[in-house]
C-alpha cells in the first residue's frame, strides 16, 4: 500500500502556483528526503498532506484517505516553532501537551498518557532534557525533544519540516541517524525536508526533489543527476560527486550549500 499518493496535483498559495499537475506515490515504510530550492514548495507539500492546504486540482490520498487535519496517524514537526524557544515550561510538559491535545477538558495525562510521553522521550533519548525548561535547551537538544512530540499518538507517517536547520554538522548527523532508527524500529513512513542532500545520504530510501512547480521522485542516483535537476532548477546543473559527498553546481556555485548558508545568515540577522 502507498502511504502518500499525489495524482495530477496542483497546489497554490494565493496567486502563486507552487506545484502543477504533480504525480508521485510514496510507499509505506519509506524514508523520503524532500529537497529543493527555497520556495520550491516543500512546506506547502507537507501542509497539503496534513490537509491544511487543499489542492486546486488533482487528488491526494494519505494512508488510504483524503487528507484531513486531525489525522492521528500523522506526526508533524513544523519548521516554525513560534513558541518553543521562549517558553519557560519544562520540556516534558511541552511534549505532553500533544497527548490528546485536541480533546476538550483538563490537561490531565492519566497513566496511559504518562506512559506514552515517557516512551516517546525514551525513544529519542530525551528523558534528561525533558526536565529542563525549553528556553534553556540548545537548538539540537530542542529538536530532539520536539521529535518526541511528533511521536505522541504513535503515528504511521512522520512529517519533519527542516529539522536540520540551524544545527551544526555533528548534530545534523545525529538527528538523521535518530530519525532513521526510529523509522526502522517503528516501521513508519518518514518525509524529511532539507536544504542539502549530504546529511541524508545513506539514511534515506528515496528523494523527492521539488522545483519549478515540478517534482521528481526516485533514488539519489536517479534524481540527483545533471539532467534531472536542470529541469527542476530551469538552468544547467552539474552534479559533482566528491569523497562520498554530492555537490549540486551551477556555473561553479554550490547551490544547496549556498541556499543553506543564506538561510543561516538570514536567521541570525
Amino acid at each position, binding site marked *: 500500500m502507498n502511504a502518500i499518493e499525489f495524482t495530477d496535483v496542483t497546489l497554490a498559495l494565493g496567486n502563486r502556483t507552487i506545484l502543477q499537475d504533480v504525480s508521485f506515490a510514496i510507499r509505506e515504510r519509506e524514508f523520503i528526503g524532500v529537497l529543493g530550492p527555497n520556495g520550491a514548495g516543500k512546506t506547502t507539500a507537507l*501542509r497539503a498532506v*496534513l490537509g*491544511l492546504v487543499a489542492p486546486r486540482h488533482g487528488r491526494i490520498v494519505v494512508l488510504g484517505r483524503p487528507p*484531513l*487535519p*486531525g*489525522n*492521528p496517524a*500523522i506526526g*508533524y*514537526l*513544523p519548521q*516554525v*516553532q*513560534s*513558541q*518553543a524557544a*521562549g*517558553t*519557560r*515550561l*519544562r520540556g516534558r*510538559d*511541552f511534549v505532553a*501537551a*500533544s497527548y*490528546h*491535545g*485536541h*480533546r*476538550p*477538558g*483538563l*490537561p490531565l495525562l492519566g497513566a496511559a498518557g504518562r506512559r506514552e510521553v515517557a516512551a516517546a522521550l525514551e525513544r529519542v533519548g530525551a528523558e534528561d532534557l525533558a526536565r*529542563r*525548561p525549553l*528556553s*534553556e535547551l*540548545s537548538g539540537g537538544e530542542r529538536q530532539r525533544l520536539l521529535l518526541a*512530540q*511528533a511521536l505522541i499518538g504513535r503515528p504511521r507517517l512522520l512529517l519533519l519540516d527542516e529539522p536540520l536547520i540551524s544545527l551544526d554538522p555533528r548534530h545534523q548527523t545525529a538527528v538523521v541517524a535518530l530519525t532513521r532508527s526510529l523509522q526502522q524500529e517503528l516501521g513508519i513512513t518518514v518525509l524529511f525536508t532539507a536544504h542539502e542532500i549530504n546529511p541524508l545520504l545513506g539514511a534515506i530510501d528515496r528523494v523527492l526533489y521539488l522545483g519549478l512547480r515540478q517534482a521528481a521522485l526516485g533514488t539519489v542516483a536517479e534524481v540527483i543527476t545533471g539532467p534531472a535537476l536542470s529541469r527542476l532548477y530551469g538552468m544547467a546543473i552539474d552534479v559533482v560527486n566528491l569523497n562520498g559527498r554530492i555537490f549540486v553546481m551551477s556555473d561553479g556555485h554550490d547551490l544547496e550549500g549556498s541556499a543553506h548558508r543564506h538561510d543561516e545568515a538570514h536567521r541570525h540577522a
Partner: protein
Amino acid sequence: MTWKAARIATTKRIGMLEYAFMRNAFAAAGIVAILGGCVGYFLVLRGQTFAGHALGHVGFTGATGAVLIGASPFAGLLAFSLLAGIGMGFLGERMAERDVAIGIVLALALGFGLLFLNLYTAFASQAVALLFGNVLAVDVRTVLALFVLGLASLIGLSVISRPLIFASLQPEVAEAKGVSLRLYSVLFLGIVGLATAGCAEIVGVLLVFTLMVGPAATAQRLTERFGSGLLLAAGLALAEAWLGITLAFYTNWPTSFWITALSTAAYAGAVLSRWHPGTIERSAR
C-alpha cells in the same frame, strides 16, 4: 513580639472581619484573585498580556456608557470587555504582533470613556473607583455576581484548557491535529474579558494587570512545571489580594496601591531569586 502585642494584633484582626464591608471585600477579592491568577497564567503563556490590559480599558468605556443610558456600570463593564475579548479573538491568533492595533483601540476606548464621563458629570466621583478600584465598597450582591462570574469562567477555562495549552505552546502542530486556533482564541479571550471585568471591580480597570499578570508572571519565573505554575499563580494572586486588603485596613492607604506593591515585590523577588551569573548568557542562546 510580646504576648500583649500579639493579643492586640489578634484582637484587631478579629475586629477587621467584624465589619460587613471587610467580609465582602475579602470574599470578592478572593474569588477574583483565583480567577485572575488562573486566567493570567494562560495569558502569560500565550504572550497576550497586553490584550488583557487593553480589555480593562474597553471595559471602562462600557461602564461609563452604561451609566449614561441608566444601566449598572458593572453590567456595561462586563458586556464591553467580554465583547472586546471575543472580537480580539476573531481578529487573529497572533495577538503579540498586534500591539499597535490594540494600543490604538485602547486609547480610543479611554477617550470614549472620558467623553461619556463628560456627558454625565454626576458620575465623575465614581470614575476614580472605576479606574483604580474600590474593593471596600463592594456589596453582597456584587459578591454574589462575582461568584457566579468566577465559577462560570473557571468552568469554561477548565473545559478548554487542554486544547488551549496545545494551541498556545505548539500552534502549528495543534492546527495540523485539527485544533481550531481561532475558536480557542475567541473562547479564551472571551473568558479573559470576564476575568478582566471581575478584576476591575477589585483593583480598577487601570490596574487589572497587577492581579491578572503579576502573579502569573511571578509563578512562571518560579516553576517550569505547568500544574504547579497554575496553582502558584492563583495562590499568589489570592495572597496578594488578601494581604493588600489587610494592609489597607491598618494603614488607610488604598487597597489597590498595596496589591500593586505586593505584586511587584513578588515579581522582583522571583526574578532576583533566580538570578545567578550566566543567566543572561543562557537565555540569549
